[in-house]
């Protein structure tokens, strides 16, 4: 229905009302999607801010697991993993790893004896260019069941309210099952003596397309030597990095990659819940750490150990953490890479 175009005399308001309404509605939908109208939405920004110590984050560094040291090495697959996953990384062969030992703290200068949680990030590349990234920790279970509870834990830990932790535990009783490990003083004296656990569940997809819910762990070949945090403290604030550097210089260090397959009904969506010990566990290969390099100029420095970077043959499961971790790690990465000047490489002209 073509109308004759309006002359300036017969001005009509309604077309402008229509235009304003269309643009206004579109803008509101956009703002809603962006979260600007939802102050309670748990955003990556909030989660990452929740990790920061009272004085603010350490600029240029990872926002958590900030203290760390790089390594290079290999993953030697024995072929056993191929029954569960078609990922090329499980085909018998040797694939390069760029990894990072780290402490679960937002403070890159933390003393080793102050941090119970030790972590390991790995990036394994196969010749077809696919990558498997994983970031694991030495704790046997995760302190909480879901990302919101993790944020609540951060909030409660930082709170001045004397009842904050009590209230948190009341709402998240699963946290109590984490405490025996967290409070134990049976630590180890080396990064090389720790197991590193995925804790999160993933799905291995085999050649037939069948999905197998799994968790995995790196089990050290080195015998753990128990040490209390007080004893560890006497060895110096950066003992772990010095020790792993010397140990690897003296000889490569090995871990078995053990994949545990869930039985139907096992809690795949909750890393706070361990699976029964009798679950089928398969040795799929060996990680070898061959060389240690300081993080400042090391090959792990600019890598985001995002646990959702997976090869075809491994996917995320109903566990909500990998998505939350990916979103938060990305935020952390964007922040720290923009702060490169605060953590300059020595090799690229830092003023001596």
């Amino acid at each position, binding site marked *: 229905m*073509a*109308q*004759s*175009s*309006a002359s300036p005399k017969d001005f*009509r308001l*309604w*077309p*402008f009302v*229509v*235009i304003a309404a*269309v*643009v206004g509605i*579109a*803008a509101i*939908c*956009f703002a809603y*999607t*962006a*979260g600007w109208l939802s102050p309670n*939405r*748990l*955003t*990556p920004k909030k*989660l990452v801010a929740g990790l920061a110590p009272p004085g603010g984050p350490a600029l240029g560094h990872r926002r958590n697991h900030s203290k760390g040291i790089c390594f290079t090495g290999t993953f030697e697959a024995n072929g056993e993993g191929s029954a569960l996953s078609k990922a090329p990384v499980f085909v018998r062969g040797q694939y390069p790893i760029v990894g990072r030992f780290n402490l679960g703290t937002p403070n890159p200068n933390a003393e080793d004896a102050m941090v119970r949680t030790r972590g390991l990030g790995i990036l394994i590349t196969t010749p*077809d*260019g*696919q*990558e498997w990234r994983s970031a694991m920790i030495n704790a046997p279970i995760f302190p909480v069941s879901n*990302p919101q509870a993790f944020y609540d834990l951060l909030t409660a830990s930082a709170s001045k309210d004397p009842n904050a932790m009590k209230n948190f535990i009341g709402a998240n009783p699963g946290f109590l099952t984490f405490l025996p490990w967290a409070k134990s003083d049976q630590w180890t004296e080396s990064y090389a003596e720790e197991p590193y656990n995925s804790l999160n569940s993933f799905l291995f997809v085999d050649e037939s397309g069948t999905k197998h819910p799994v968790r995995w762990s790196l089990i050290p070949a080195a015998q753990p030597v128990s040490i209390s945090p007080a004893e560890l403290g006497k060895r110096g604030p950066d003992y772990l990095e010095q020790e792993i550097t010397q140990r690897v210089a003296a000889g490569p260090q090995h871990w078995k990659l053990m994949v545990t397959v869930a039985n139907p009904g096992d809690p795949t969506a909750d890393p706070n819940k361990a699976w029964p010990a009798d679950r089928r566990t398969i040795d799929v290969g060996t990680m070898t750490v061959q060389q240690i390099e300081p993080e400042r100029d090391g090959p792990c420095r*600019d*890598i*985001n150990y*995002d646990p*959702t*970077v997976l*090869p*075809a043959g491994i996917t*995320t499961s109903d566990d*909500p953490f*990998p*998505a*939350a971790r*990916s*979103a*938060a790690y990305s*935020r952390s*990465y*964007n922040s*720290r*890479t*923009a702060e*490169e000047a605060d953590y300059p490489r020595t090799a690229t002209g830092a003023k001596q």
Partner: protein
Amino acid sequence: MTTTRTRFAVPQRILHWLMAICILSMLFIGVGMVSTITTKYLTLVQIHKPLGIAILVLALIRLALRLYYGAPALPADLPTPMKLAAELSQYIFYALMIAMPLIGWAMLSAAEYPVVLFGSVHLPSILPVSPSLHTLLWHAHYYLAFAFFGLILMHVSAILFHKLVRNDGVFEAMASVSTDDQPERPTH
């Protein structure tokens, strides 16, 4: 190439509307994904990357079609500022449609992320790993996305103005479902 046609060619119209859906989805997915830590985050990121590359391919095809078919002339009585705005906006649209996916791809490359499209299919890295380049490209991707959405709102306002206020045939040049390229212009 100039043309006397009053409508865009059929392939141009199809691509315009297909890309309109893709680009609007892309912008909503983009702002949505960086605002959430739920499992939707991964789903949105997994759509964002291949859709971005699809838009890049479609934009290049569209640019070729534009060079081949040209565009219908704007109404002769359109005031010069509006004519300039219309022409400038088209250049900006093409620049954004091509630049945004490339910036995204380069940004992932500079951050050492694999650019996975689906399954084991991934694109090569197009930049060396560099925190400073990553930061520059990330900021460009972020702010240009808002500029892109703003431009689309202006585009929608302008085309509704053409239709509802001037009724000068500009809307029909792209909106018509007719395959006839030489219809009568609406009477003035």
